[in-house]
């Protein structure tokens, strides 16, 4: 499959990347590992004038410990992160979601920044231009309808990142830098809730770092997939328990991951959250399993993950 025509620029600093982005009036994409972006470009879902390679920016690569936090550069690969002793020892939920992402070969190329910022997916969207033209363009492609839900008012594409929900359960924050300055926000605030434009990050802004508190936690991650070895989550559930309370992250259904809090960890609370997450989940027929099954599995997986943690948590 041939890529559409674009220019290639390599940025050495964040400033340079922002500068190139504005030179091209935003008709640009940042490129980290490319494992999410390149397939989208091959399908002509975007036609940028330039692709800006940010892998050469040294300050975006580092993983350091500072003041009880792990500061992770977005260009750290999933495989590097998975091998980080602090994550292995203290953050089992994140370790497991990293391990469950795609496959080893892609983990060695894919970055955590690109993983968080990956586009939402839909059976009717991740398709070739010819296929999509025959079907007619939907909201996410600039059209006026949804090709899955009749008379839908918004886009129902699914956010399928495995690691954002785990990061949410460990209270991670994201540092964003843009032409107008820098800000630090909770990972959940990165998501807009709109499948068409899933992120609150403005065009051209760069995810500069992820701040992960290093507390002792218990946790686990579980995902529903059709293919065991390599597959996006059709539902993903992340659970982290810390100081007697817990957070639950749900991914794979709808345009943004959701997070829930349990003040105490007991059977009643777990059942309540499983019921609530089941109610909130609004899957539609845009993934390879039926909506009813995926919805049901939200509650099932939440209970299953808590049981697994009780038994020691390993996969």
């Amino acid at each position, binding site marked *: *499959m*041939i*890529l*559409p*025509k*674009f*220019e*290639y620029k*390599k940025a050495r600093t964040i400033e340079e990347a922002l500068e190139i982005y504005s030179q091209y009036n935003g008709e640009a994409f940042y*490129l980290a590992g*490319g*494992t999410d972006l*390149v*397939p989208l470009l*091959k399908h002509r879902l975007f036609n940028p004038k330039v*692709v800006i*390679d940010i*892998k050469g920016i040294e300050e975006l690569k580092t993983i350091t410990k500072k003041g009880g936090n792990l500061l992770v550069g977005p260009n750290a690969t999933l495989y590097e992160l998975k091998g980080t002793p602090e994550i292995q020892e203290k953050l089992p939920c994140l370790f497991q979601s990293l391990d469950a992402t*795609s*496959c*080893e*070969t*892609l983990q*060695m*190329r894919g970055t955590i920044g690109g993983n968080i910022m990956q586009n939402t997916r839909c059976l009717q969207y991740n398709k070739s231009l010819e296929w999509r033209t025959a079907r007619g363009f939907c909201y996410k492609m600039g059209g006026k309808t949804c090709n899955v839900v009749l008379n839908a008012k918004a886009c129902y594409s699914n956010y399928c990142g495995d690691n954002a929900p785990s990061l949410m359960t460990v209270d991670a924050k994201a540092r964003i830098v843009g032409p107008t300055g820098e800000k630090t926000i909770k990972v959940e605030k990165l998501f807009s809730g709109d499948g068409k434009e899933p992120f609150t990050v403005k065009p051209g802004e760069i995810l500069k770092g992820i701040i992960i508190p290093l507390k002792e936690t218990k946790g686990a991650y579980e995902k529903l997939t059709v293919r*065991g*070895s*390599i597959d996006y989550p059709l539902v993903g559930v992340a659970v982290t328990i810390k100081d007697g309370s817990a957070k639950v992250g749900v991914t794979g259904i709808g345009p943004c991951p959701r997070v829930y809090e349990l003040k105490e960890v007991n059977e009643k609370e777990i059942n309540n959250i499983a019921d609530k997450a089941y109610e909130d989940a609004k899957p539609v027929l845009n993934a390879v399993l039926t909506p009813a099954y995926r919805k049901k599995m939200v509650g099932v997986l939440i209970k299953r993950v808590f049981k697994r943690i009780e038994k020691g948590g390993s996969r």
Partner: protein
Amino acid sequence: MKTVKVTINVNNEKIKLQVKPYETLLETLRERLALTGAKEACSLGSCGSCTVLLNGTPVRSCLILTPEVDGASITTIEGLKEDGKLHPLQEAFMEKGAVQCGFCTSGMIMTAKGLLNRNKKPSRAEIIKSISSNICRCTGYKKIVEAVEEASKKMA
């Protein structure tokens, strides 16, 4: 559109090229350098048949732009043999009958080579984990896993 100058070390040979900015590494290898061992199947990163080593690490070359690898070393299946002798992985694949149609084979071997580069003695579970993301429609994987086990024993 302006081309991009790159210098890459392919199978221990330094090569200077002018490539399209939107050219994938797989296209460069197959179409410019006639190294057709790496295969294009899905072209979307899902199957692993295009796997080559980038500085010793397996990558899916259909997802990589050639300008990204300027200055890097690439090893393809053509570059595995040493002193005219096949690599133990290649031999084990033949001996164990791990090849049927052969379309997945170079991707399987390069993925396995990447595994052996970082883990000299992988367990069976580690071998399965590593190569299971490469699609083989013929063999059922059993012989492939055996071949990688055999090669890692021979190389130990």
